[in-house]
């Protein structure tokens, strides 16, 4: 099995990756600005629905039910898709998914393909596999195009080029589209992208995309987007290949009623996406002549097996948790070293990769809970983070690590109030060499990370319990 989540196996720890990003003032400004704008819009349109909380509850319930019977719904989807004239392929891991897609592309003798924005293809590293086989992928989502032309990595689930501002985008377009005269107004930039892409839409006959929802009942695949470039890819090419994680299935067409209210409001702060497409198989004289869905596991059934973390698979990739996260706000998405950044990435990536890699990610959170509050499918991300931290401690980390020994020692002290009282007296005395004018300015070892940016008030001479004992002799 080659379970892969982008390049996260090779990614440095979150702490290491965060450092250069924290020093990139322009990037941080871009991230702060973009997330604030989206969040403000999201808060407004979520707030205007009186039944928002009921919708979240319904979405979570539908997802939980689907995950409990995932095998049945997937087979139902397969049968319905086949009946509508489509084809369904099953991929155990990233490698198999890429191989299946490559075979389909080769059958068309295609040397280039259109891409609709898809996280799953980024997860499997499809573009690299295509390029290695001599096939050129053209990203058609505006932000993905910026990332591709800039030889960059996406930094946000919904807004992949969120870390770039307009003038940075203009520089990329000027160079890669050979348009030295290009201005930086939104009109100039979209016009340039439009001209660049239209030519490809009309020429390239194979498109690869993802899915927002797979409808088990009808075999339809629902794709929502803002630009219409996805719609171009769905309607113009002769061959359409859609890659989807197995968790994308929902039971009924009617369930879209819930999700299509929650997703656009959570993702882009829109009441409805400008383009909502549902493709079901093939139809004579309309759209692609050959329609394929590649269903991908790539570690998902492993997550399904962990009862406490299973809710991770409820995710509909709206990105609301990224925009709300105070940690993401500081670093942007690249620090997470994965296709999936932000709070959802911090729980998804380490699980997909069986906790061997990305052990720092469950700790990349202050557990402030802002992600859970905005999550449209009610994934209790802090709870899953804590669960995964437990798995890091129990399954991955040496029990002789200084932190582990320290934690065990402190726990032993806390198990007895007499030991705690003795430890308090010890701390009150032992701090003396560190204290200057009532403050500690430098702590030793790993704790020096605290005093790098914060002083620590010295431990007072008398603890509360010492005071109590002195003043409340009759008490308990």
């Amino acid at each position, binding site marked *: 099995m080659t379970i892969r989540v982008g390049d996260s196996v090779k990614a440095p720890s979150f702490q290491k990756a965060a450092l250069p990003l924290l020093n990139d003032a322009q990037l941080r400004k871009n991230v702060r600005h973009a997330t604030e704008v989206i969040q403000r819009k999201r808060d407004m349109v979520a707030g205007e629905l009186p039944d928002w909380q009921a919708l979240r509850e319904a979405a979570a319930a539908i997802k939980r039910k689907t995950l409990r019977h995932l095998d049945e719904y997937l087979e139902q989807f397969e049968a319905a898709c086949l009946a509508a004239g489509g084809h369904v392929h099953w991929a155990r891991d990233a490698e198999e998914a890429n191989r299946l897609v490559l075979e389909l592309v080769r059958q068309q003798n295609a040397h280039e393909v259109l891409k609709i924005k898809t996280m799953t293809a980024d997860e499997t590293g499809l573009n690299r596999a295509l390029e290695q086989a001599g096939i050129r992928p053209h990203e058609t989502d505006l932000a993905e195009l910026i990332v591709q032309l800039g030889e960059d990595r996406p930094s946000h689930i919904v807004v992949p080029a969120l870390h770039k501002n307009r003038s940075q985008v203009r520089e990329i377009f000027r160079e890669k589209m050979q348009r030295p005269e290009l201005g930086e107004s939104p009109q100039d930039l979209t016009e340039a992208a439009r001209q660049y892409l239209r030519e490809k839409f009309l020429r390239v006959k194979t498109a690869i995309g993802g899915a927002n929802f797979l409808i088990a009942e009808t075999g339809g695949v629902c794709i929502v987007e803002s630009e219409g470039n996805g719609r171009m890819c769905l309607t113009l090419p002769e061959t359409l290949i859609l890659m989807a994680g197995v968790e994308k299935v929902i039971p009924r067409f009617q369930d879209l009623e819930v999700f299509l209210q929650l997703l656009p409001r959570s993702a882009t702060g829109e009441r409805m996406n400008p383009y909502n497409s549902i493709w079901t198989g093939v139809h004579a004289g309309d759209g692609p002549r050959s329609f394929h869905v590649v269903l991908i596991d790539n570690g998902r059934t492993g997550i399904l097996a962990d009862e406490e973390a299973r809710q991770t698979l409820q995710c509909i990739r709206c990105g609301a948790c990224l925009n709300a996260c105070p940690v993401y706000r500081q670093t942007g998405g690249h620090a997470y070293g994965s296709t999936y950044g932000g709070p959802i990435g911090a729980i998804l990536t380490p699980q997909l990769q069986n906790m061997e890699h990305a052990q720092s990610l469950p700790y990349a959170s202050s*557990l402030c809970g802002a992600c859970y509050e905005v999550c449209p499918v009610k994934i209790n991300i802090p709870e899953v983070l804590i669960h995964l931290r437990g798995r890091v401690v129990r399954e991955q980390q040496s029990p002789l690590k200084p932190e582990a020994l320290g*934690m065990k020692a402190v726990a032993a002290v806390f198990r007895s109030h007499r030991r705690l009282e003795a430890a308090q007296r010890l701390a009150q005395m032992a701090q003396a060499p560190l204290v200057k004018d009532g403050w500690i300015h430098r702590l030793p070892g790993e704790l020096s990370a605290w005093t790098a940016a914060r002083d620590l008030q010295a431990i007072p001479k008398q603890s509360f319990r010492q005071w109590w004992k002195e003043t409340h002799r009759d008490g308990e």
Partner: protein
Amino acid sequence: MRISLFIACYNDLLFPETGKSLVRLMERLGHTVAFPREQTCCGQMHYNTGYQREAMPLMRQFVETFQDAEVVCIPSSSCVAMMRDHYPKMAASTGDARLVDAVNALLPRVFEFSELLVNKLGVEDVGAYYPHRVTYHASCHSLRSLQLGDLPLRLLRKVRGIDLVELPHADRCCGFGGTFAVKNGDVSAAMLAEKMRDVEDTGAEVCAAVDNSCLMHIHGGLHQQGVGIRTVHLAEILASTEEETAR
């Protein structure tokens, strides 16, 4: 009412004034405070850092120590959140039915400090006097886990002499997050820098909260920057009276 105080381990050692103020206030309001000596720590640091096994005996100890209490008051919202969010699940995982029952019976009697005053004791005006410009930092656990809403602010608004100023971006984390501040010290410091700017912009002399942990973080940052803003727990403001200030 007989109020059993769970002080929280870090308040006990680092912020004894919070406990003393709480005792003084509750006694002034006509209640009795008990401090069971067997108490230590709720287990939050261990639990949240991944040492869940180590947190288990600490939960048992809390339950044993406080199971007969009329009400338990905790001047630390994150400890209350630890209990409400995780104790039931932790107890269930032991398969010990007696422990599950004990946790379920005890939790409804556990109150965060401002919850106890407003929701249980029904007071908002506690007769406090505090002639300072104060801003209030709503800690993440108080806001999103306990859903305290404006309870602490309702108490503060009734304090005489206070000049209460609103903190911008009040729902944004200060970057403490327990061991997060050490494990991800740089990101935590970047979050803190934003919070400090917001606090300074209010022009307040004092930043208050219902969690000394956030305040330790904010005050530590301000002190290192040479900013003279003080931080105090809500209990210390509510315990202050005109007579005391005159003294």
